[in-house]
């Protein structure tokens, strides 16, 4: 499900992958505003890759690797707060 990530000094980050990304052209201000609106139920979840920590290892996780399974994706304001 997740490949182990190389650990460097930089703070790694991920981001969306796939078609949505191709819309990021400079003249598409309205498109990028639209991307900030809420996603819709019944539609594909935007794919992404994100680095993370899982059971003692740093990993890179891609949402689409979980196709075939149910996924609960939870966001929260920050570590050391409740979830």
């Amino acid at each position, binding site marked *: 499900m997740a490949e182990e990530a190389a650990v460097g000094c930089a703070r790694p980050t991920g981001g969306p992958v796939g078609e949505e990304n191709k819309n990021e052209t400079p003249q598409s201000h309205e498109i990028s505003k639209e991307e900030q609106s809420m996603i819709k139920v019944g539609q594909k979840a935007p794919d992404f890759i*994100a680095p993370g*920590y899982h059971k003692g290892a740093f990993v890179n996780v891609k949402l689409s690797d979980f196709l075939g399974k*149910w*996924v*609960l994706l939870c966001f929260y*304001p*920050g*570590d050391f707060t409740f979830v």
Partner: protein
Amino acid sequence: MSIDSMFVHKMWNDHELEHMVKGGVPYPMLSDAGGKVGTVYGVYDENAGVEARGRFIIDPDGVVQGYEVLTPPVGRNVNETFRQLQAFQLVRETKGAEATPSGWQPGKRTLKPGINLVGMVWKEWKTTDAFD
């Protein structure tokens, strides 16, 4: 997933969460530094620089079946999340032949949508079923 780095996730897991959950957090704690993923999902607050308490149920086809988003001061109800997950799984297993009405819990009666149900829901479902 939060805007914290995976290094902070490790510290939080190793120094606090492991005291709450034996063996630590069993699922990946993901980092969205910069809020790029949160922006696409509509939960990133640019002004505060953090993400709201968003929870998305994604089915095996990668389709979003439901979500809930709360501002930071109020926590989620995990039981309700599991109830919805079980309901979506039942609907999927029956290929849509069964639906779960308001207040459904595992074991409670489902509805079978179709022409014979039109105008007859009152026989199958009582308002008291919405509670408890």
